[in-house]
């Protein structure tokens, strides 16, 4: 079943396309890593999918009425905003899908002990976990996450990716933009590579993180290895 379906999606800023003719389908059971250097158009693509910014082409989500869409997809934006010192438990519950969903999401992100703490008094990484939990608590078939691992400690990074893997294996879909290529290689079922607004590669991690793609898109080289803990990819050096 396809959860996200984009056809020729284009977003312009002035004359210049920031997202250029992107077609993409994400099915249930996939954890898609959205990769690309800064300015490649990952954030714009995710926001356009939801209809948060005007776009040309089609997204199956952007045309939905707001309430229906909220049941189909959850969104975790890059900017982490918590305006008021609300208790963590209440913040996660804003997702509006009941206490059960809230409790499960908080347990998944290791936040059970944080329930009554004021969200703004937490560290940046802890706040990020709270916001991920809020998105999980929406209990939707699809999750779009913009740099969910940024600013997290290694434990929280891996935990987050594992939670996303679990969601995928439960039959949901996850699309997450990631800068950590190693994390993406290890956990994602599929990688999509963007450069200058276009999709330049799409496939299994080992294929997308090829020597040519890495050189052309990121300007780096690195190495792949198989270890007892799974496949590893490590970027090593700048080419240009």
């Amino acid at each position: 079943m396809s959860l996200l379906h984009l056809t020729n999606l284009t977003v312009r800023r002035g004359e210049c396309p920031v997202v250029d003719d992107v077609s993409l389908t994400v099915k249930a059971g996939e954890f898609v890593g959205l990769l690309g250097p800064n300015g490649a158009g990952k954030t714009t693509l995710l926001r356009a999918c939801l209809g948060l910014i005007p776009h040309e082409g089609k997204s199956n989500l952007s045309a939905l009425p707001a309430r229906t869409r909220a049941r189909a997809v959850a969104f975790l934006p890059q900017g982490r905003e918590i305006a008021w010192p609300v208790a963590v438990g209440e913040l996660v519950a804003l997702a509006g899908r009941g206490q059960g969903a809230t409790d499960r999401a908080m347990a998944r992100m290791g936040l059970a002990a944080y329930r009554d703490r004021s969200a703004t008094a937490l560290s940046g990484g802890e706040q990020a976990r709270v916001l991920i939990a809020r998105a999980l608590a929406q209990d939707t078939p699809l999750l779009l996450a913009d740099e969910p691992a940024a600013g997290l400690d290694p434990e929280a990074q891996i935990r987050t990716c594992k939670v996303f893997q679990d969601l995928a294996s439960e039959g949901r879909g996850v699309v997450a933009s990631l800068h950590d290529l190693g994390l993406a290689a290890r956990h994602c079922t599929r990688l999509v590579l963007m450069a200058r607004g276009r999709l330049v590669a799409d496939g299994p991690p080992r294929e997308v993180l090829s020597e040519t793609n890495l050189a052309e898109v990121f300007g780096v080289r690195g190495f792949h290895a198989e270890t007892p803990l799974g496949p590893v990819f490590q970027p090593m050096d700048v080419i240009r």
Partner: protein
Amino acid sequence: MRRGIWPLLIALVAVLFMASLLIGPAGLGLGQSLRALIQGQGEAVVLVMREIRLPRALLGLGVGAALGLSGAAMQGFLRNPLAEPGLIGVSSTAALGAVLSLQTGLAATFALALPLAALAGAALSVLLIMLMAGPRGGALALILAGIAISALAGAATSLVLNLSPNPFAAMEIVFWMMGSLADRSMTHVWLAFPFIAIGSALLLSTGRGLDALTLGEDVAQSMGLNLVRLRWMIVLGTAFVIGASVAVAGAVGFVGLVVPHLLRPVVGARPSRLLPASALGGAAMVLAADIAVRVVAPDQDLKLGVLTALVGAPFFLHLIWRMRRVEA
């Protein structure tokens, strides 16, 4: 603390409302006042209670609730603790309408001329905001448009004062602008309350949306919030309650800014809880201030707006001081 705050606030407002009814230069006894108010016994006392003190207390309640509620709504919507209801220009255009009616002599023609002119001014600011910030413009466009409208209305008000034919006319305008609840009648109550009621209903219904906005506009929209609709409810609700408040009480500053600040930590910071709490808190603050102007200087006609600013501004400085320490 959180659960206990509701009965506490309600009791505080009730006590202050009663005090506002019972305190005044006429020096009436408690039983005598209440008998006059409820049963209509004793002619002069009935007049004092029903025609002078009751409208004054009711307006203190309504205007205070309007200021507190719209302040909390505006802060929640803009996610900024420094926001206040005057930010979208409603207060200044309503004041301009009132000032024009005083200047042209329209205010003297019939009792409701001044408040109606103030309401027309508030309506004008909503039209201008709609034109300038557009139906889909963001919070920034709203703030900038509000600042521009406020500046324009302020300049026009100054111009009226500047061109005022005699010092007494200017004095009347200046005194009116200080804000007061003295010498208001039940007519003022009947004029203001429908607008305050409609505006309050609009603002109170934004609670869930404002809760969602705590996480930013993108997240709120992804959770199903219609941002454009919410924005118009806030603008219209604020215009109704603030337009009506300025129309009957003049400019009463700092209540909309300070009350949400004070109550935010007490209710756990959630906008949906802060809205009704601030309405109660605003009512308490204005009732208390209006009692204070009668008690502190009974012969001086101390203006309500002067007192709220005198108390509010130092408090505001204290908040900035504390914020500075936290940020440093």
